[in-house]
Structures are given as structure tokens and as C-alpha cells.
């Protein structure tokens, strides 16, 4: 089930096991049959920890999604709410509890499981509504870092960036530090901590403080990670704004990957069976899980999309040849051997069919004129061309009322690549946007300004060219098929964040002091003492393991770039990636937009 989690350098199954154990312990506390009422947002992340079978073993008989009104009938002893600590969810729970039929027998017991933390504010809220006393168990489930893949952990905290950089609410940083403590408890103390950015500094401080306050957490586990690198998202605001050009990145940009699942338009996946003549075309989206458990996907996901087609066609030939083998199988032994391979071949065939279809869907989009125009403008900005005047393509897109998020991505990209826009240019864009999309978006524009994504050039100086040149962010000779540099993930642009990680490993940040000073927030190094005996004696040629934690989100293209570095023959470092949330430019900007519709309840 979770074999892919143990395939990497660090066996993340242990983390998943710890999560499962805690879940079982909680369920057993509420003795008797149970129904779980789910905050729908949580089902995805929980799905990565446990399947329904685990819940069933612990007497969970029914599951509902949380919604206002009377709870559905279910003859169970316990009703357990699995929720994030959000006030609007507390209102729904209150409604549920108040409408519960008091006369029914036997009475049902209520419990709340807060994920990832109990919230005093929420409990206060429930108390004011007069229902707090109805709950027998109020507990928390510390689902901080969820294993997504053998080298990937995410907190799936949607609003972490907004909270940290817009509202100066550091709760998600506290959770990040907690998650790191858990990780250290399982995988040993990480001896070296590097960081860049204010949030990184905070998290490092909290970790050091927590360690000091709970000396019991001093453990005797041999450290798996050599280095922790904490990176603020606002150190590199540029990267998520650009369109990702890896296979996985494009799937996410176009269809959105959620908790490793993607929903795709069903047409291309219609089963073509004889005699059916396409009468039952499926209308529901096709849902697929994407992770390294699928051999083919693991091979192609981090490639530039331009290199995916040839791999797929090569695979098709290999599989065809493999199936042809049956004609050569003469003896019973040979036939037997062929048959024994069939399941594996069938799996490979269906995997290939799926990815061929997905590649076709994506290609329809990447070959469209608009995709091309959009990319042209992005690449111009990133290489520093015409970033200081109003861009025609952006104006055209506004005139044609393209989706607002697309416009905002481009304008923010231009602003970031110019260290802020000239006041006149900024005013012009603002005006066009407000007139075309509505004045109320003034609130969103203000949020973007506060987050530093869209701003007037204050110093009158554009630092971006210096940063670009020193860190070699724009590479002219990119090789998409057989890359020799991380810039292949954006067909020319090397993600700043990953470049920082790369330069830290070799030759060290001392070589780029000047540029580091231009980027926001402090950079620092901390060491955590290891008890003697746990210090590592590295074998000749053994790679170091670095955990890179992106505070505020990471894109699939950045993950691909880090995986590329891990696989470099003389790289010397392997990376494991952690983040508060897997993002792309669209979901990121969306999280910063003002919600314009009033809540439905």
C-alpha cells in the first residue's frame, strides 16, 4: 500500500506508521461503534495515512461529510467530528449537535478530533453556543507532516503563506517546528541547520527552544539527515509565478493535483471495447493517483514535457515486443513463464495507456497559441526584457477578459522581475484590472501588495539583474532532453530557491553573500550538538542527506529540480523535501485573493 514511501533514501513509512498508530489510539478511546463526520478538506490528507479498512477495524461503521442540518440517522454509539480548527466549521457542528434528537435512544456520544491542533478559540466559540459540554472527548491529531512520496512531505496547510506574510500569524510556523521535532524524534537530531528568511529564522528558533525545553526529546537515534535547509517562500516569489514545464508540473498547472490525485476529463479514457460503439461515454472525471509507486510515472514526471513523448513511444515499443513474445513461447515452461509475467505487463500497459492520454491532453494545451504567447512573455520577463513598461500581451488578455488569476500571475511576475513596477505602470495595470474585473478587487490588489508580489519600485533600483546573473537564473543553452542543469524545469529559468540549495551544498553560501543580502530576511547557520557516538563517520562516496523545508509552499517543478540534483552523479547530496503546502501559481495567488462571496452559512 505504501511501499513507495520506503523507496527513497529515508524510509518515510515510519512516519506514516506513527500517524496510523495515533489514529488507532484515539479511535479506541471512543469505545463502541462510531460514525465519523468529516471536514471534507481532511479526507484527502487522511487518505494518505489510512484507508477505510483501518477505520473499520476500529468500529467505524459510517462516514459523513460535515454539513449544516440534522445528522443522518446511524445506529452508532459515537459520533466523531474530524475537523480543522475553524470557526465556520464550529458553527456547522453546533447546528448538528443542537438538532440532535434528545429523545432518541440510545443516545449518541459526541467527540471532536481537531486536526492538527486543538484550538482554544474554537472551544471558546462552542462554549458560547452552549454546546461545548456535549463533547466527551476533545482531542487533537497532530497531522503535521504527511508523507506524500518517498522524498516528499507536506503539511497541506492551504493558508500558510497568507497567514505568515499577510497576517503575520505564525501558527503554521509553530506547526512546522512541531513537525520537525516529530521528524527528529523518528530520524535523529539534524546536526546542521541553515536558513534564509524571517520565517526560517523563527522556525529554527522554535526548534532550538523546544529542544531546550523538552530535554527528554534528546534521543539516541543515529541521525538520518545531515542538514536541514529552511527557506522562506518570500525569498523566491518569482518561481511559483512562472508556468511549470515538467510533466508533473504541467498536470498540476492544468488540472490540479490534490493529495496525489488528479481528476481528468474522461473522454480520452473511454474504454474502447468492441461492440459498444461509444454509447456509454463516461461523464464523471477520471481520477488517478500519481506517485512513485507507478514505475512509469516515477520515470517521466520530472522530465521536461518536451522529453516525455519520446519516452512514451519507446515504452510502447518495448511493451508491444514483450507481448509478441507469446508467439515464440513453445514449450509449456516458456508459456508458463510468459503467463507469470502477464500481470506485470498488464499493469505496465494500463499505466502507459493512461499517461499517453494525459500527454495528449496536455499537448493540446501546450501547442495552443495562447500558451505560447503567455510563455513568451514569462520568459521575456525572467530574462529581464522589457520589464519596466506596460506589456501589450497583458493588456490584450485583460481586454479579452482572460481569467483574473492569469493576469495577476503575469503582472506579479513582471513586478518581481523588476524589483517593483514604476508607479505609472502599476497604476495603469491596477486601473485596467479594476475597470474590467470589478472595483472590489482593490482588496486583492492590496493583499498582493502587502505580500510583496505587486509593488511600486521604491528604491529606484532594480536588483533583479544582479541576482539573475550571480545565481545564473537564466540559462541560454538549456537541454530539455538530457538536462545538465536545473533550468530545464522551466525551459531556461533555474528556480532561485533550488539554486540556493545547490550553492549551499557546493561551494557554500559564503560565495554569494552579496546576493543573499539583496534577498529578504536573514540567512543563518545553527548547529545542534549530537551526543558522542552518534556523530557520523561518512563512508567514502556516501551522499549527504539534506532536508529542504519550503515555508509557504513549493511547486512540482522545484521538487523536480531538487530530484535532478539528487541524481547527479557527482552531486554528493540527496534531497528530501518538506513544505507547508504543494502549490502552483494559480492556487498560490488564489490563496491571497479576497473572498468575494459571503460564506454560504
Amino acid at each position, binding site marked *: 500500500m505504501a511501499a513507495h514511501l520506503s523507496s527513497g533514501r529515508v524510509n518515510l513509512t515510519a512516519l506514516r506508521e506513527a500517524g496510523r498508530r495515533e489514529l488507532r489510539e484515539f479511535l479506541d478511546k471512543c469505545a463502541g461503534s462510531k460514525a465519523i463526520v468529516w471536514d471534507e478538506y481532511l479526507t484527502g490528507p487522511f487518505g494518505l495515512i489510512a484507508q477505510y479498512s483501518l477505520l473499520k477495524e476500529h468500529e467505524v461503521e459510517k462516514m459523513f461529510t460535515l454539513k449544516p442540518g440534522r445528522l443522518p440517522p446511524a445506529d452508532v454509539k459515537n459520533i466523531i467530528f474530524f475537523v480543522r480548527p475553524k470557526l465556520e466549521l464550529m458553527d456547522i457542528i453546533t447546528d448538528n449537535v443542537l438538532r440532535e434528537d434528545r429523545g432518541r435512544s440510545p443516545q449518541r456520544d459526541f467527540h471532536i478530533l481537531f486536526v492538527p491542533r486543538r484550538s482554544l478559540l474554537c472551544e471558546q466559540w462552542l462554549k458560547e453556543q452552549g454546546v461545548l459540554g456535549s463533547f466527551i472527548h476533545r482531542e487533537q491529531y497532530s497531522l503535521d507532516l504527511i508523507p506524500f512520496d518517498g522524498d516528499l512531505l507536506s503539511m497541506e496547510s492551504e493558508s500558510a503563506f497568507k497567514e505568515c506574510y499577510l497576517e*503575520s500569524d505564525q501558527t503554521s510556523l509553530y506547526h512546522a517546528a512541531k513537525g520537525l521535532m516529530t521528524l527528529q524524534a523518528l530520524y535523529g537530531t539534524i546536526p546542521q541547520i541553515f536558513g534564509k528568511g524571517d520565517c526560517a529564522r523563527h522556525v529554527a528558533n522554535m526548534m532550538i527552544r523546544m529542544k531546550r525545553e523538552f530535554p527528554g526529546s534528546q534521543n539516541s537515534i543515529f541521525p538520518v539527515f545531515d542538514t536541514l535547509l529552511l527557506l522562506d517562500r518570500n525569498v523566491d516569489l518569482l518561481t511559483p509565478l512562472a508556468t511549470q514545464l515538467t510533466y508533473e508540473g504541467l498536470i498540476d498547472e492544468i488540472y490540479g493535483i490534490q493529495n496525489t490525485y488528479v481528476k481528468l476529463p474522461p473522454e480520452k479514457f473511454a474504454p474502447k471495447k468492441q461492440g459498444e460503439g461509444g454509447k456509454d461515454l463516461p461523464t464523471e472525471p477520471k481520477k488517478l493517483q500519481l506517485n512513485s509507486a507507478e514505475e512509469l510515472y516515477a520515470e517521466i514526471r520530472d522530465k521536461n514535457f518536451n522529453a516525455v*513523448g519520446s519516452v512514451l513511444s519507446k515504452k510502447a515499443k518495448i511493451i508491444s515486443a514483450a507481448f509478441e513474445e507469446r508467439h515464440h513461447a513453445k514449450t509449456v515452461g516458456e508459456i508458463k513463464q510468459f503467463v507469470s509475467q502477464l500481470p506485470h505487463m*498488464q499493469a505496465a500497459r*494500463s499505466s502507459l495507456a493512461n499517461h*499517453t492520454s494525459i500527454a495528449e491532453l496536455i499537448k493540446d494545451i501546450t501547442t495552443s497559441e495562447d500558451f505560447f504567447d503567455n510563455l513568451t512573455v514569462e520568459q521575456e520577463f525572467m530574462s529581464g526584457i522589457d520589464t519596466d513598461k506596460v506589456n501589450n500581451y497583458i493588456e490584450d488578455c485583460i481586454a479579452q477578459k482572460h481569467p483574473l488569476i492569469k493576469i495577476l500571475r503575469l503582472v506579479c511576475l513582471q513586478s518581481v522581475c523588476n524589483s517593483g513596477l514604476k508607479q505609472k505602470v502599476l497604476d495603469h495595470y491596477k486601473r485596467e484590472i479594476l475597470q474590467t474585473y470589478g472595483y472590489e478587487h482593490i482588496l486583492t490588489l492590496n493583499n498582493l501588495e502587502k505580500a510583496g508580489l505587486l509593488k511600486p519600485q521604491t528604491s529606484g533600483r532594480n536588483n533583479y539583474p544582479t541576482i539573475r546573473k550571480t545565481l545564473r537564473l537564466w540559462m541560454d543553452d538549456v537541454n530539455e532532453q538530457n538536462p545538465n542543469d536545473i533550468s530545464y524545469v522551466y525551459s531556461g529559468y533555474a528556480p532561485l530557491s533550488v539554486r540556493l540549495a545547490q550553492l549551499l551544498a557546493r561551494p557554500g553560501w559564503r560565495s554569494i553573500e552579496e546576493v543573499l543580502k539583496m534577498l529578504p530576511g536573514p540567512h543563518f547557520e545553527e548547529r545542534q550538538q549530537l551526543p558522542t557516538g552518534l556523530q557520523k563517520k561518512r563512508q567514502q562516496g556516501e551522499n549527504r542527506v539534506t532536508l529542504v523545508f519550503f515555508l509557504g509552499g513549493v511547486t512540482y517543478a522545484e521538487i523536480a529540480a531538487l530530484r535532478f540534483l539528487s541524481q547527479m552523479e557527482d552531486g554528493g547530496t540527496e534531497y528530501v523535501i518538506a513544505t507547508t503546502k504543494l502549490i502552483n501559481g494559480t492556487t498560490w495567488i488564489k490563496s491571497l485573493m479576497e473572498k468575494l462571496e459571503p460564506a454560504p452559512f
Partner: protein
Amino acid sequence: MSRARADEEEYWHSSKFRAFTFDDEDDELSQLKESKRAVNSLRDIVDDDDDDLERVSWSGEPVGSISWSIKETASGSTGSLEGRDSSLQKGSSSYAPVPKQVSSYSLSSLFKGRNKLPSFQSLSDALTDTGVKNYAPELRRPRAEYKDYSSDWSPKDTVRRMQRGKVCSLERFRSLQDKLVLLDEAVAGHDGNVITAVLIFLKRTLRREILFQELEVRQVALCHLIHFLRETGEQKFLLDLLRFLDRTEEVALSQYREHLNIQDVEKRREFLKGCIGLPFSPEDTSHIQDHYTLLERQIIIEANDRHLEMAGQSEIFRKYPRKASILNMPLVTTLFYSCFYHYTEAEGTFSSPINLKKTFKIPDKQYVLTALAARAKLRSWNDVDALLTTKNWLGYTKKKAPIGFHRVVEILQRNNAPVQVLQEYVRLVEDVETRLNVATKYKCHDVVIETYRDLKDRIQLIAYKCKVERGSAEEEKINSLLNNT
């Protein structure tokens, strides 16, 4: 698109930029098709039920995943009785702790706490204290121990207990000094949950002015309080706070945000009117003013047009009934609406496009674009023509398009303009390369032929012959041109 096509092509080929396209020689689309064919042909060999390899329901979710199970179990009517019986038995038995392996960590076992400290111990003492007690099996404690109102926790311990999710009484922190120490401790712990809880307590027990003053020098706590007030909708308190801090722009925006919660348009208009005087930045002030003026207009137009539509007298409303009300629509949408329904009205009326253009200082480009789209949608080609015609002082007329004629053609084509109309504007596309592209794309044969003629490009002309219909007037035209030279 200002850069002419030709330039663009050259730019792409000569410059260092890479376009994101598949290699032409190695046509990957055909490769993809080929793989797909190969894959599909294999279906005959393998079992028909191969789609079931992983037991995936059609929606794609593996059977047994949590979200799948929600649907499944929710649709079933009642739980199995046997299951319940056994569970009831279990319920009555006391739950013994599950024995735990020593070497393995459960998440809850990681949080270890300190022994209870004497109250009011100084902070530095607390730091050096090393007494440790394992709070790990917290999950299994009897409920009574939960609400620990033991009254002598130090501020630090109080915060730490709250971080672990325990309920603590804060009431005994009476002096301002104690309260502030408590707040500082909470902030140092970075747990927003605890910080907010302490703030709620301070908010209840401190005078506003004092609270505000103290928060001014505690930015983190301040941010949390602002966030909290927003979340719980305590608008008045929030505005008082922001005003105290002299964060006037924020006060203005925060107040303006409120209009989103007002459904009634009249009330919303009144509210926006009140927003105009708020201390926004100078640029924002004019936008807010415009927002108010726009809604005011929309209300007048809406009342008028609804009346017209109901009366059924006006032809345009009969022919093209309105799909939605114009209220709360963006400015450009409103302009489109007025170009659609009120194009010919005199400048004096509120609903006339020219009036909107003047009032909101809509740039020429935007205006032409919108008017063009509206008139083209009505297939009113004369209006299109007039819109693009200017008279100079000698009385000569001239065609002019601030958006470029290639965009004009694009818009007309999208509205299915006849070839004759399209052709006229394709001719006006200035750049030759672009003109040829557009003309070829929309099959304006005459323009293509004329352009090649002017370029004296015989080879292209011959090549184009196969693109026109056999025996058509266009073919004849090409032939006669070729024969003449």
C-alpha cells in the same frame, strides 16, 4: 500584439529564446498517437477486465479510500446489528491502555513536559530547571484531570500547558504586569492558538486604551488580534484599534470590505457613498469614487430597462432579452451592455456609452474594443464602419483603429462577419506579413491575391492557386494576373 508577426518569427529564430514547441522533425504528436495505437491494440490480448487491476471505481478512486467510503457508507441505510451489539459490549468494558513498545514513538509521546513548578518562579529559574515529567499518555488520562484549574502555574507553564491543549484558568493573572508577562510568554511560544486565547482574556479584562497601547509595542500579538477581530467579525472594535494605531488606509479598506456583505443594492450604494470620504491612498480614492458612481448608474439603468423590457415596446429588448441584471457588474461589462442596448442614445442620458466613457475616463482603446464587440454581436456592420471612421478637418474620411486592424478582424470573425465585411478590414492591416497571415487564416482570397500581386511574388501566387476553388472567380483572377506579366 504590437510586435509584428514577421519580427516575432525572426526574433524567435534568432534570439536566445526557446519557444515551447515540439520538434518538428521528430513529430511527437504522431509518436503519441503511435504509442496509443500500440497500447490499444494490446487490449485484445489481455484480459477484458484489465481496467480492474487495482479495483478502481470509475470515478477513479481506489475502492476503500476514505472519500470513496464516505459515499458508500452514507448511502447504506443502517449499520449492521451484530456490529453494534459487539461494540456495545466493548463500550462497557473499561479501556485498558494498549501496551507500548519502548523503542517506538507515538506522536503524543513526543511531548514531554516539566514538573509542576512553584508559582511565580522567575523566568530565568524556569529555564534552568531540569525536572522532567512525561506527559505522554495524556490521551489515556481520565477526563477529570483535563480541566486542571490548579491555580499556581507560572505564566510560562500556563502557556506551555495551553500549547498542549489543556484548559487553564487565566483569571488569576490580575495585575497588568502579570498579564503582559503572560502575553509575552505566549508570543515567545509562537503558537497562534495560545496567543489568541491570551488576547481574548486581555481584551475582556483590560481597558481598551491600555490594551491598544500595549499592543502597539507588541506587533506579533497585534497582528493576531487584528486577525481574530476580522475572523469573528468584530468590525467596530477592529476599526477603533486601527484608528488608534493611525493605520488609516487599513481602516478605510477594512470598512470598504464591508460592502460585500450588503445584499440590498440601495443600501450598498449608500454604504459606498459613505466610503468615499475615507482616508484611502490617492489612487484608491478615485477608484472608490468610481465604484460608487458606477453602482448609482447601474441602479438607474436597471430600473429603466426592466421597465422597458416588461412593457415589451422596445424592439431590442424583445429580440435580445436580457440574461441577467446589470447590477454590480464591472465597468467594462456595463459599457458593453450600454453599447448593446443603448448605443444610439444622446450623450445626456445616463445609459449612453459616450456618457459612460466620459464619466469614467475610459481610454479610447478600451472603448473601441468594447463597442466593436457589442455592435459586431448585433451584426450591425454600419455601426462598426462608423466606429472606425474618422473625419479630418478637410472633410476627408479615414479608417482608424486604436487597437490595430488585426484585432478588429479577430473580433468581427468571432462574430461570424461575412467575408465582404472582413475583407475590408483585412486590407487595412498595415504590416504585410500579418495581413497575409490573417487573410489566409480567414480565407479572404482577394486580399491574399492582391497582396501577392503588389509584392510581385509570382511563386506564392501560383502556390496559392491550389487553395482557391476550381473554376471560381478567384482562380480566374490569379490566372489573369499570371498571364498579364
